[in-house]
């Protein structure tokens, strides 16, 4: 029931927005978020845009987890620099994947 689907804002009115779910699906939804702009990504639940999606935060969460992984690897007696290097490469692959056009 609390199913939420990310969508991109195409058009804005006072209380309503036209959003694009991808795959050619566009719908008019109610806006429950402040300071929304055209082009923003939102989570749509039951026809209501309830929140903006912040992509930077998604990467930060992964980074925080990587830090934890490094910490645990250190406890296991692995070389910190090697582990860091491994995760740095993994993360740059991910951010690379998210940057190419």
């Amino acid at each position, binding site marked *: 029931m609390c199913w939420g689907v990310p969508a991109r804002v195409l058009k804005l009115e006072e209380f309503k927005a036209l959003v694009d779910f991808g795959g050619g699906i566009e719908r008019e939804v109610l806006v429950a978020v402040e300071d929304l702009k055209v082009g923003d990504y939102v989570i749509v639940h039951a026809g209501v845009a309830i929140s903006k999606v912040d992509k930077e935060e998604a990467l930060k969460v992964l980074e925080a987890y990587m830090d934890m992984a490094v910490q645990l690897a250190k406890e296991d007696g692995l070389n910190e620099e090697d582990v860091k290097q491994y995760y740095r490469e993994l993360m740059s692959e991910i951010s690379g994947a998210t940057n*190419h056009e």
Partner: protein
Amino acid sequence: MEVSKTLTNSNIQRKFNVEIESIYRRDRRIAGEIRVLIHKYVDKFAKIHGRSFKFKFMNFCGTHEWTTVHYGIRSLLPENIELVAGPGCPVCITPSFLVENAVKLSLEGIRVYTFGDAFKLPAVEPVKGVRSLAEARASGGDVVVVYSFLDALKEASNHRGDSVFLAIGFETTAPGYAIPLINNLIPKNMYILSALRLTPPAAEYAIMEAKRRSMPPVDGIIAPGHVSAITGAKPWDDLSKRLGIPAVISGFEPLDLLLSILELLRMIWKNEVGARVEYRRVVSWDGNIESLKAIDAAFDVVDSPWRGIGFIEKSGLEVKDVYSHYDAFKVFGLDKPSKTSWTNDSFSGCKCTEVILGLAKPVDCKFFLKVCNPSRPLGPCMVSSEGTCSIWARFGGHLNLKS
């Protein structure tokens, strides 16, 4: 580790967002890494508690249970970690009397709008031989299934007669009703039949119920991401501190759940309580302030009954008196049970109540996949696509892949 770059081109941005979701959905490498870390923590705990220790983590959202079952998260975890579904499906806990009232109105010629989830939701006491809105429509009742409240508003303004919206949902859905209500966007011939319920009080009830029945206690809370998009992390932080167990607000992709489980383990290891937000791309600490204000202006928080469970303190939303001309209960003089007049509204023999509270699994019910299945549901947990029984029936959560 510096990975964030400023993205201005909307095409790139678009790609980026799609990719982020897909990383969280299906990056097997990172999933494998997180799984290794989970096992590492379990090994740490095993050194202290022995190999047979158990941690029980409870989720409070049907979508979390869906992800868990659909992506086989349970089979990725060590046996020491048990994932349990708590009350997280608003359709499943909608009391029978609300369905009876909606059926009654539809048979009297008043149009009833509902979400598809609640269309087949059965009442315990049939009204004129009719048990659900689906049956009511088959018997000539006026029932319309809509995708959103907004669609119903448009429909109703072209409709001559009176209409009622069966307003089911948790905090996530509440602003969708509250904003039109306080901004006069609802046509004069449309009324709200509020079945709105609040999640944290029910979460607390379910966790305490395990204690009351001397069942294994809940060791960690996997808090619902989209409810928290509205409420923020605060209510879960309070709950966590009151009960002394950690809470992590989780997103809905498989990686989100794995990361949340890992974070819960870390918090238990460090003896931390309070709420942490894993779903930071959507949830902020204070929540959606504008929506919270709208909910506050439109609804009163009241003690409300939950199906098969009974009254839970301060767990429901009722249309405020200033908007009583939109309140279907007042306009049509509908009955509401009080704490003393409430009678248990679960079907006899159906284990739905225990399943909702995380005290039983769907497979423990004698009706499960025998007389009760998704095409012919008996209990409310089999009706909604977010009900635990329905999820297990469709995606096979009942299979234990390890044994």
